[in-house]
């Protein structure tokens, strides 16, 4: 690194083409930067783990410009170009860093032969059970064997037999025969989670991945080993044998478990979600996510989903419930219990509704213990959104006693509750029965049961929208599966409530139009930003004065409260 913190570039030559790459880049990454789908096949190398160099799949040829040893002068060929001294043997790309003038061949006969050789060795004891293997379709071994394998085996001896279904932990099952001993999972557990339970025992062809007797791979990040296993050795016990991956549709989403906002992919088919995996974002979650975050989709099909718009328990249309809600809200003396689980767009509407019905807004905190990685103390995905939209202007409260007093004194007559069970937050059912309740939420609870008006809302997997995470990064999620039949996206119903409150006619809004309004109204969001313009990797917003609030998050993988604050107060460009 140079003094101003930027990395200097070096120029290397890859297959005859000069490319400029940051110093310290290894050859696998450098070749990736050339683009055009160029890749050095590899198994054990992972961009977020230490380099082990054990699979030997990434062999390339390397040469350096020749210099006269005595004088240090360049040795030239007949054309006056500096000669390249090629190493007699291939070298592994993952452990070779780009150096000025370095020449690399990724496609020479020697390189191809090396890959073929490595592939043949890897397949000697491999069970070749792709037809029943979960990894098929996303297996590096399968892909590279198609390219570098010989198509038939020269091996006539019996293959090794190893255990096919070892339980490594509550969520991970190991098929030992498929393991190519790349040690990615071992390094992940040790380096990222600091839970060094995995290792190889025995030697040679008997080598086996295992946990120390009496220990298990049970940390909340165990399923990441399944993601990074380049073959089908580590499988998710939950997803095992459920679905072929090529049938699944992938949708970009955001994890709602905490304010970290891990970027995710939802894998679904015909309206059913089969799994959630992390999506790489170096500013948020690298390539990881929690196990608990992956299980959140199970709530989609849970029995207690709210599936009907109702007034007094009777099924109604969205229009009917909206106008009934408007009538209640117009009556005055309104209080709102908002949610940091709502999207930015919804919060924008709730803010409008609160303003127009002069409601006092409370928001309850959901704090837990942070794990220092990807599960922060704030277990809501969008507290920053509630602040930036102006829905609230201070950090959330632990419970609702001021609101309870308001109800008791008769100052509050109508309560709009978003996705909270207020009966567990200091408002007894008795007290609740004194007011009219409008409940908006995904699942039923004691508050919803007693509500006069119920507006079912969609889960994050069923709608488009955005959240703002702990570092004030605006991130968007897309619809992966349809919601319960007949349920509209929340903002459409909210429009039908917000507009009449200002004596306007509700419009048939799209998210694009909501975003035009948001961008025009909110200071922290650039006027030119459109819904479609929000990049997949998110966009950092200016927190402004909000940065001074004593947020609950402590240091975790990509967030350091102290450093974050300093970076915000430093003059731009420094």
């Amino acid at each position, binding site marked *: 690194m140079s003094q101003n913190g930027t990395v200097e570039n070096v120029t290397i030559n890859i297959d005859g083409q000069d490319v400029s790459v940051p110093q310290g880049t290894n050859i696998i990454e450098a070749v990736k930067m050339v683009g055009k789908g160029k890749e050095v096949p590899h198994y054990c190398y992972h961009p977020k783990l230490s380099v082990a160099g054990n699979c030997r799949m990434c062999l390339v040829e390397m040469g350096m410009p020749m210099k006269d040893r005595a004088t240090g002068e360049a040795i030239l060929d007949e054309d006056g170009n500096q000669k390249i001294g090629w190493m007699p043997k291939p070298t592994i790309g993952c452990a070779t860093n780009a150096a000025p003038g370095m020449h690399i061949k990724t496609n020479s006969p020697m390189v191809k032969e090396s890959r073929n050789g490595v592939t043949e060795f890897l397949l000697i004891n491999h069970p070749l059970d792709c037809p029943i293997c979960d990894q098929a379709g996303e297996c590096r071994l399968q892909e590279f064997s198609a390219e570098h394998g010989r198509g038939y085996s020269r091996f006539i001896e019996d293959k090794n037999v190893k255990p096919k279904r070892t339980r490594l932990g509550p969520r991970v099952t190991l098929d030992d025969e498929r393991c190519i001993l790349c040690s990615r999972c071992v390094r992940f557990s040790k380096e990222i989670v600091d839970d*060094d339970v*995995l*290792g*190889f*025992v*025995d*030697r040679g062809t008997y080598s086996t991945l*295992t946990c*120390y007797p009496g*220990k298990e791979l049970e940390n909340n990040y165990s399923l990441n080993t399944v993601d990074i296993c380049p073959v089908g050795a580590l499988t998710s016990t939950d997803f095992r044998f459920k679905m072929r991956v090529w049938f699944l549709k992938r949708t970009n989403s955001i994890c709602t478990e905490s304010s970290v906002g891990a970027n995710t992919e939802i894998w679904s088919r015909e309206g059913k979600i089969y799994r959630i995996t992390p999506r790489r974002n170096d500013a948020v979650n690298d390539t990881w996510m929690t196990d608990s975050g992956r299980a959140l989709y199970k709530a989609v099909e849970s029995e207690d989903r709210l599936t009907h718009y109702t007034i007094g328990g009777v099924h109604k249309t969205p229009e009917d419930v909206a106008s009934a809600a408007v009538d209640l809200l117009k009556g005055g003396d309104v209080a709102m219990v908002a949610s940091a689980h709502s999207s930015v767009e919804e919060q924008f509407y709730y803010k409008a509704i609160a303003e127009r019905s002069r409601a006092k807004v409370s928001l309850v905190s959901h704090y837990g213990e942070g794990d220092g990685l990807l599960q922060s103390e704030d277990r809501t995905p969008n507290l920053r959104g509630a602040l930036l939209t102006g829905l609230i202007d201070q950090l959330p409260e632990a419970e609702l006693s001021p609101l309870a007093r308001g109800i008791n004194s008769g100052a509050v007559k109508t309560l709009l509750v978003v996705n909270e069970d207020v009966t567990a937050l200091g408002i007894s059912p008795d007290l609740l029965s004194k007011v009219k309740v409008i409940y908006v939420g995904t699942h039923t609870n004691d508050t919803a049961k007693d509500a006069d008006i119920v507006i079912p809302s969609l889960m994050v997997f069923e709608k488009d929208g955005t959240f703002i995470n702990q570092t004030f990064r605006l991130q968007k999620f897309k619809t992966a599966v349809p919601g319960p039949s007949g349920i509209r996206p929340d903002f459409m119903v909210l429009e039908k409530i917000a507009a009449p409150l200002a004596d306007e006619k509700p419009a048939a809004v799209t998210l694009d139009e909501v975003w035009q309004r948001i961008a025009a109204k909110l200071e922290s969001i650039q006027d030119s930003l459109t819904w479609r313009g929000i990049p997949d990797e998110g966009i950092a917003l200016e927190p402004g004065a909000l940065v001074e609030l004593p947020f609950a998050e402590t240091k975790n993988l990509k967030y350091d409260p102290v450093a974050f604050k300093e970076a915000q107060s430093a003059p731009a460009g420094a």
Partner: protein
Amino acid sequence: MNLKPETTEKIDKLVPRYPTKRSAALPLCHLVQEDQGYLSNEAIEWIAQRLELEPINIQEIVTFYPMLRTEPTGKYHVRVCRTLPCALAGAYQTCHRLEKELNVEVGHTSEDGLVTLEYVECHADCGRAPVVMVGEEEYTDIDPDKAGELAAKMKSGELSDGMPD
């Protein structure tokens, strides 16, 4: 862990000699095995703790090297060399004879716990092949007949177990 005071002393001297504690793992395995006869899980965990490692790190080493054992041996630990010079000089016949006389399969411990019989690689005395070790005692030029005599002495308990005391 009940280590002899000498062993503990050796370990305490040894560990600080390495720039990182981890490097002392293999020597510690040998010292503890010498002391205990084998490396139980308890021993593995003790070593790991001593070196501020996880038990799996030691387990990896212990299962990698055939010299490190995870089970106790019989009273006599008999190791027959089968590297080329000994093999040519008849090490296999020697071993078969021992198997028969001692009623134990090579690679196992006899049911009565008297002997553990194993093949190993070169004892570094190839000129006097076949070479057999009993404990730390070396016996050279062991043809099947001499193997029979050794076996008889083990059964009668006359033979030293070859263990340094």
